[in-house]
């Protein structure tokens, strides 16, 4: 009805345009894209002798019974005599080109009982190979409960929206009739730091900003998780999908969720495009959560 002068005269500078763009960007949801993960070969890496390595291989097969679902898997178990250094192991992996590597912490080392590193082999493997690595409890570790089949799989991240790969792998490793728990843990400390900065900017209402940001983060994640559940059901994968969205201290929350859900497998990302080291909190988590198998993508 009005048609005169500059946009600013209508109070519609960048802010009003941006306001509507925000509305439409929020409506443009990221939908989960299901694609069946195919694992055609598994390389089990052990540092024990042949007999113990075979026993470890059996434990892995038992844990990954879900892989038997409709696929012919080629299994290969390596023992400690087949390699004695990281380059040698990498050569072996290059020759095998497995779809999945299963191993444990501190290969060829006695420091597995010290929960401060993953050992040089896994440190390098997680960054050098693109193959997902499953890290199981050390064969000598006394576990509170036996490793069982992957009935409860927890996929954990601080930014699940759009991470189709994480969800697809987690779904693939969830045993028939099992539960896939999608857990998104927003880092409360990071949010607090931003809100503290917002609190120093007079033009932004701090309380509104805190509420709006937290609400938007949760809503986007929730919508994505809903689409995950919908697509997985549509693909007739025989599992149930649950969603957990929490805010808190990353490590504490991750460990609490693993315990709360009695996870049989924890799936997380480890690659970080900006650095050679393992992604964010994956490293400390992989070190601290020692009694639960981890799938590192």
């Amino acid at each position, binding site marked *: *009805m*009005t*048609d*005169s*002068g*500059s*946009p*600013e*005269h*209508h*109070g*519609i*500078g*960048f802010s*009003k*345009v*941006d306001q*509507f*763009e925000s*509305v*439409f*960007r*929020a*409506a*443009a*949801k*990221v*939908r989960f894209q299901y694609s069946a993960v195919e694992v055609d070969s598994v390389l089990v890496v052990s540092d024990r002798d042949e007999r113990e390595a075979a026993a470890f291989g059996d434990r892995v097969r038992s844990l990954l019974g879900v892989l038997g679902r409709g696929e012919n898997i080629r299994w290969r178990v390596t023992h400690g005599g087949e390699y004695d250094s990281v380059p040698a192991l990498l050569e072996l992996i290059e020759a095998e080109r497995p779809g999945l590597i299963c191993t444990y912490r501190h290969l060829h080392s006695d420091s597995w009982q010290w929960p401060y590193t993953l050992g040089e082999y896994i440190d390098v493997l997680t960054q050098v190979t693109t193959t997902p690595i499953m890290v199981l409890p050390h064969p000598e570790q006394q576990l509170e409960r036996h490793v069982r089949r992957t009935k409860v799989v927890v996929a954990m991240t601080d930014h699940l929206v759009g991470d189709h790969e994480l969800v697809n792998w987690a779904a693939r490793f969830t045993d028939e009739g099992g539960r896939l728990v999608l857990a998104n843990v927003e880092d409360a400390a990071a949010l607090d730091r931003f809100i503290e900065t917002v609190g120093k900017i007079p033009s932004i209402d701090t309380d509104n900003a805190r509420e709006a940001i937290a609400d938007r983060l949760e809503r986007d994640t929730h*919508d994505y998780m809903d689409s995950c559940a919908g697509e997985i059901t549509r693909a007739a994968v025989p599992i149930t999908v649950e969603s957990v969205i929490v805010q808190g201290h990353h490590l504490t929350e991750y460990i609490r969720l693993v315990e709360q859900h009695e996870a049989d497998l924890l799936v997380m990302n480890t690659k970080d495009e900006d650095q050679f080291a393992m992604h964010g909190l994956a490293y400390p988590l992989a070190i601290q959560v020692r009694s639960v198998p981890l799938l590192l993508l």
Partner: protein
Amino acid sequence: MSLRVLATTVVQGAEQAAGQAAEHVAGEVPMGITLLFAGVLVALIVSLALEEKLHAKKSLIVGLFAIVALLLGAILLPLPYGPYLIGGHEMNMPVYIPAIDWGVITIIFGASLFVDVTSRSGLFTWIAIKLTKLSGGDPVRILWLYGLMTVVFSAVLNNVTAMIIVGSLTAVSLDKLGRNDKLLGFLLVEGLLTNIGGLLTLISSVPNIIVGTAANISFVAFFLKAWPFVVVATVATLLLGAKLFGIERLADEQAREEARSLVSGFDENDGIESRGFFWFATGMLVLFIIAIATTSIMPYVSDLGMGFVAMAFAVVMLIRYKSEVDQFYRTVDWDLLGFFAALFVVINVMEHAQVLGLIGQGVERIVALGPTLGTGAVMISTAAFSSVTDNIPLAAMLAKIIAGMPLADGMIRPPTDPLWWAVIFGANLGGNITPIGSASTLVAVTIIHKHGLKLSFGGFVSKALPFALMQIAIAVVFVLFVV
């Protein structure tokens, strides 16, 4: 009698009184004084044309000129001071109060408040996203659907809001589809279509309201006259836009499937906070359009006018936000309302200073070129002036001048007189020639720049000129042979 009825009666009476006073003083103003006031008017128009350079709000620019005009008027002119005779009662009020066309002010105030509250329901974004999904992500279908949406939103809401909604959605959807290379073309076509949509109804643009009110054109009569042009001009603009900007259908089924999948991610319900309010707002919008369309034939309501209807609907909508209505008051475009009020004051003083009469003589010469050439020339010159300066004062001035130009037989010009329509079409379409010609095209340019695309003043003119010339040519033919 309600207060509002009383107020309306007072204002109408005061306007008549002011008009009578104007007639009374006609012929008593020396030419030197008339030319002095004409100089003030020219300075005002130049200042408005340079508003971007002045970095001043329009209400302030015109407000300052209103003060100068009133002071000069008080010193040099016999202004029609009160008391005014209203319904048999003498009433006192400052001379600048009856000078303002409160009918126009209340329509703009009420309608923008109503639209603002209605948009909070998520209705407009719901429609926009539904159409996006309907397009299946195909660029040509998007262009047509967004183009039609622009026209309808411009007609029902206002040009600027329509451009913001459709332009924002265009930027987001083309980004999602990976078609940012077509953004400039889309936004330009949509910007140009806002001024076509602005011609659809009496309340679609301010020049329509001003000229339509002066010519006594009803909402329905306006729509029935204007819609064929809007349809033809929209189709022609979209066809030309697709051709000039190389917007084509997707080549194969795989590309179509991919695009469908991308736009299916849009959730039209995301912006809806309350389903109940959404439906309430939808119902109210339909009722609003019906009420505005039938105001002139509704008993009692016709006496109160469209401004009353617009404000009544706004107040009813505000009930939803009864504890936070002040938030909506803050979003009202007070600058625009102040601009109008001050502008009406300036024009009123110019009328008393015989400046409008002087300009009218010039317009009469153009009109005297004949019913065909004269009317066409009025439209083209109105469009040319609108392209570089504000079309609202131009429309207000021309409306007053034409109203004061009776037909050869002494009868007043009927609503169907082509001269009214020449001004309406010229004032709206002139905005498509330059980026400063209308606020909505300027919004389009704002969005273009926001997304890092370069478009200079000259660049806009060179791209928009084929569209503007085509639209004006269609309009000339339409006004001369169809209206």
